[in-house]
């Protein structure tokens, strides 16, 4: 049970991290001057937004997972190159990442063009402008939406159950198959996720406050 909780924590943390990275990089690529780069990012967003995350998870695990070569494991047998935890992490990161790209993009659109121009006039490179000016300002605008999406992501990690990642839900399920205290289990599950998401939201709110600029917005 504790193991399940830790797996959920770890899966959430990994997915939060990578989905934000995907969001930041994707939003940068969307501003690229290459048409095909922009098309590729838009295609990615459409694909992951318009399909159910469970189907994505199955796709990664069963379709791509079986195409990859296997490696010899410690006991001399053959194991897949990537385990079910890794696939869940990849799949859910891409899923939440697609939304994060859009969220960051709308934040970026809210940054005044004149502010960016001032940085250009000072000799900043495109990447410096993105990193030092656009992104920090876009972040502040995007934070409430990002907050929402990340909460959703944590809740969506329960889907990893479907490919037998031993997360909180999966472990609870194992226990309740062996025991009779189903009601207690359900109460525990609900509270565990409630606390987990609560901690995340509190952290995000604190972050939001710490980023607040005196006299701005």
């Amino acid at each position, binding site marked *: 049970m504790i193991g399940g909780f830790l797996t959920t924590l770890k899966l959430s943390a990994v997915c939060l991290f990578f989905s934000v990275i995907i969001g930041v990089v994707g939003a940068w690529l969307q501003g690229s001057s290459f048409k095909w780069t922009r098309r590729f990012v838009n295609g990615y967003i459409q694909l992951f937004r318009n399909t159910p995350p469970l189907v994505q998870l199955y796709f990664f695990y069963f379709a791509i997972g079986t195409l990859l070569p296997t490696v010899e494991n410690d006991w001399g047998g053959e194991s897949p190159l990537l385990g079910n935890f890794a696939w869940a992490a990849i799949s859910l990161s891409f899923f939440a990442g697609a939304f994060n790209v859009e969220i960051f993009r709308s934040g970026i659109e809210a940054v005044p063009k004149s*502010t960016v121009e001032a940085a250009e006039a000072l*000799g900043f490179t495109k990447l410096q402008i993105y990193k030092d000016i656009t992104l920090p300002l876009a972040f502040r605008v995007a934070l409430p939406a990002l907050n929402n999406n990340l909460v959703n992501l944590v809740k969506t990690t329960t889907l990893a159950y479907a490919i037998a990642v031993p997360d909180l839900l999966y472990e609870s399920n194992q226990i309740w198959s062996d025991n009779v205290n189903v009601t207690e289990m359900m109460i525990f599950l609900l509270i565990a996720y409630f606390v987990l998401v609560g901690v995340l939201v509190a952290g995000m709110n604190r972050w939001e406050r710490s980023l607040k600029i005196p*006299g701005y917005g």
Partner: protein
Amino acid sequence: MSWTPADPMVSINNVHKSFGELKVLNGVSLDVMKGDVICIIGPSGSGKSTLIRCVNALNDIQQGSILVEGQEVNDAKLDKLELRKKVGMVFQQYNLFPHKTALQNVMMAPIRVLKQDKASAEAKARALLKKVRLEGKEDAYPGELSGGQQQRVAIARSLAMQPDVMLFDEVTAALDPETVGEVLQTIKDLAEEGMTCILVTHEMGFAREVADHIYFTDRGVIVEHGPPDTFFQNAQDPRTQEFLSQIL
């Protein structure tokens, strides 16, 4: 043929610029010598902003040539970084970085672009803020400053790059009347120190006082130009006369 300080600092030659179908500059030429202060005046929409934005390549041009210390700006292989180290620009809306303090606004470009170390960039930034009379406001964010104060931070931010030419685009137009004076004073100080300045302004009294040369533009051409005294007392072209009669 390399540039020497005896050549024009900025040499604009027969510049044409359009935004799609709209022709905004129709063959503009002017030279600015080192240490000169020139003022560009003219009705709204006549292409003043567009012209000075071409000088630091914020706008590209379709035809003609702009040389900044001999460097051709109308060049597909233009080294923009090199150009922008030479040319500073101050905007009507200040355009400070709202998430950075006054001090950070001034320090940022020297650190990022000129790769100065933090300590010396900070020392210079503090000195510059003092110079624009903002001592004590180092840690204030733009949102906590008045328009005139923000504009002076913007001037300091630009000066921190040690430019050879400064462009000012109606930098007092968005200010409350009581803060216009402090910004004009800052620019005047700069001009007196010998900074080469290209100013777009509606402040005629100021133009008359600081400018070495006045250019009047209308519909993308320079209609008339001359030293301030001649220009204001002896405008020849009816368009200039009409403009001056409206504004003075």
